[in-house]
């Protein structure tokens, strides 16, 4: 890492030979901070019982969301599990719509039909928001298949966790992806815990990037707490897939600060362990430090930025909450595309 301003170029910093402009760094930092504050707000709203059901926050994992988004094209496909708020916000979906979805409002990204676990945005090529662990992996393979079928060079960024990676469907997908050289990047967000089960209690091979070896799927490990490393390594992985070399696994070493879901006090981890990640490796603090050292920003500026973002998030929550609940008539919408009016069960009615 060479955290200093280069003389020849515009303001910015260079890491591992890759230059990031000050503007871009600010944007990446801003997005990470936004996701952090958004998730905190979501946690607060959950505590107030305004958000129901399951709610999985990604505090601590923001560098993975933002770095990947920075590395990909907007036409690339992306799908993940139920820990999806950070990813869809990083993709560019309107945060008010994400918050409205959490609150079960009409203006939610899926109109209040999905909630926390089922965020989708077809315009942003974001295909969920999938609630069954590992389910999105063969689906991501299908998007990659469609890309190869059409020859349109789009890459499928298929994200799972260190829990999901133990599902059989993942290996079925590794095999077919390698067999047919499908353009897919399998991202494993290794936050060390599958719900309450630590990686070492669930996996004989804890180096998850090696999980593709017997399928000839190469893998790399990335510091998922360093947004610049995520951006750089993810860019290489996407290029690998896009250039026709087939699938690749990217293991992002990361950590979630909160429990698995809102009902989880996370007593299975020591305070020391959480502190080590939270204060020692936090991705937002890390980038701030780099930017300050490179003379791209000051402590005071970051404080102001944080204040502004918090204000923005409060406004978003307020706007989302002000929305009406979905109209009862939408209960019957979007079950079938080709409804058959004269056959039972009849569209839009009981009996």
């Amino acid at each position, binding site marked *: 890492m060479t955290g200093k301003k280069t003389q020849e170029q515009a303001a910015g910093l260079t890491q591992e030979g890759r230059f990031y402009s000050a503007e871009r760094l600010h944007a990446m930092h801003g997005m990470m901070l936004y996701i952090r504050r958004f998730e905190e707000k979501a946690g607060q709203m959950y505590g107030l019982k305004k958000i129901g059901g399951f709610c999985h926050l990604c505090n601590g994992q923001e560098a993975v969301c933002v770095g990947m988004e920075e590395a990909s094209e907007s036409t690339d*496909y992306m799908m993940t599990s139920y820990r999806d708020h950070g990813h869809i916000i990083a993709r560019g979906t309107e945060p008010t719509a994400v918050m409205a979805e959490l609150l079960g409002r009409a203006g939610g*990204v*899926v*109109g209040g*039909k*999905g909630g926390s676990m*089922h965020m*989708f*945005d*077809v315009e942003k090529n974001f*295909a*969920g*928001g*999938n*609630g*069954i662990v590992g*389910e999105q*992996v*063969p*689906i*991501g*393979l*299908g*998007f*990659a*298949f*469609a*890309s190869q*079928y059409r020859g349109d060079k789009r890459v*499928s960024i298929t994200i799972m966790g260190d829990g999901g990676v133990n599902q*059989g*469907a993942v290996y*079925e*997908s590794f*095999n*077919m992806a390698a*067999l047919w050289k499908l353009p897919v990047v399998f991202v494993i967000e290794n936050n060390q815990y599958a719900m309450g089960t630590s990686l070492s209690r669930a996996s004989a091979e804890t180096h998850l990037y090696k999980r593709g070896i017997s399928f000839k799927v190469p893998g790399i490990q990335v510091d998922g707490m360093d947004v610049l490393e995520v951006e750089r390594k993810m860019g290489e992985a996407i290029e690998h897939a896009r250039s026709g070399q087939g699938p690749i696994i990217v293991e992002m070493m990361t950590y979630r600060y909160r429990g698995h879901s809102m009902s989880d006090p996370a007593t299975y981890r020591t305070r020391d362990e959480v502190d080590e990640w939270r204060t020692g490796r936090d991705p937002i603090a890390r980038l701030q430090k780099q930017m300050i050292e490179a003379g791209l920003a000051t402590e005071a500026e970051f404080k102001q930025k944080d204040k502004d973002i918090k204000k923005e998030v409060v406004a978003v929550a307020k706007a989302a909450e002000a929305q009406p609940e979905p109209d009862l008539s*939408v209960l019957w*919408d*979007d*079950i*079938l*595309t*080709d409804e*058959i009016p*004269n*056959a*039972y*069960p*009849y569209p839009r009615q009981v*009996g």
Partner: protein
Amino acid sequence: MAKITYREALNQAMCNEMERDDRVFLMGEEVAEYNGAYKVSQGMLDKFGPKRVIDTPITELGFAGLGVGAAMAGLRPIIEFMTWNFAILAADQIVNAAAKMKYMTAGQYNCPMVFRGAGGAAARVSSQHSQAFENWYANIPGLKVVMPSNPADAKGLLAASIRDNDTVIFIENEINYGDIGEVPEGEYIIPLGKADIKRVGKDITLVAHSRMTGYALAAAEELAKMGIDAEVVDPRTIRPLDEATILASVAKTNRAVVIEEGWRFAGIGAEISARIMEKGFDDLDAPVARVTGKDVPMPYAANLENHALPSVADIVEAARVTCNRA
């Protein structure tokens, strides 16, 4: 009209649709180089090439999910399960992904695709390879369930299923693959959700689908010898169900027997007889009878297997009792 087999009729439907729409592809175990475990895809690899007729590893959950993703991305997959017994491995993708995707995404994504393959009882393959699952899928909003009973229906219904913009569970019957019948040439579409009266009669309505339609027709011939004129109604689409045709028949005959190969508890017959009770109660002169497979896993021995399945004699007996004739 040409006389062709049920399997050839299915093949024609797929070939016609693939010629018509280059988004359609066929994927499954042994569909390409082996020409299909039951030869349904005979010659398709030669005709369309390996890009569109794709052999998979034995990996049902994986390729079912691949189909879901490809459909979400705008293609029109035909995913073949060698038999529906193996589709249980893929149930998550069918039930939790394909069926719900349109609803869960408020219409942003949908899954226009066909899952197809052999269902029902085969011959002498014991309990894991001989069973009926149409009631499982028929229970789920977001799915359509289609089951042809003869070659012409096989062609017309499969073509309609491929063109349909929803996920269709298309259950063929292994025993019927070699059946020969007259099938219209060229493009032939039978709309989904339309039952067909396979035999007109006035004394009793026999409702039967898939292989049981043939049994019901054979039973109707036996019943005719006893002076009972049976009408045979084949729903063809199980979900959604053309109950109007069934109810109109019952309004005429005042009696009904519902026949299915699957188990009795929470079966298709349970649903159809409940609908006749709810909507046609005043038309009934006798309780609706059900003829179903016995409530046991399918045994191997020939005599036990025969005994576990509905027979023509069972249908005749149920109809005779329902008509209250000795």
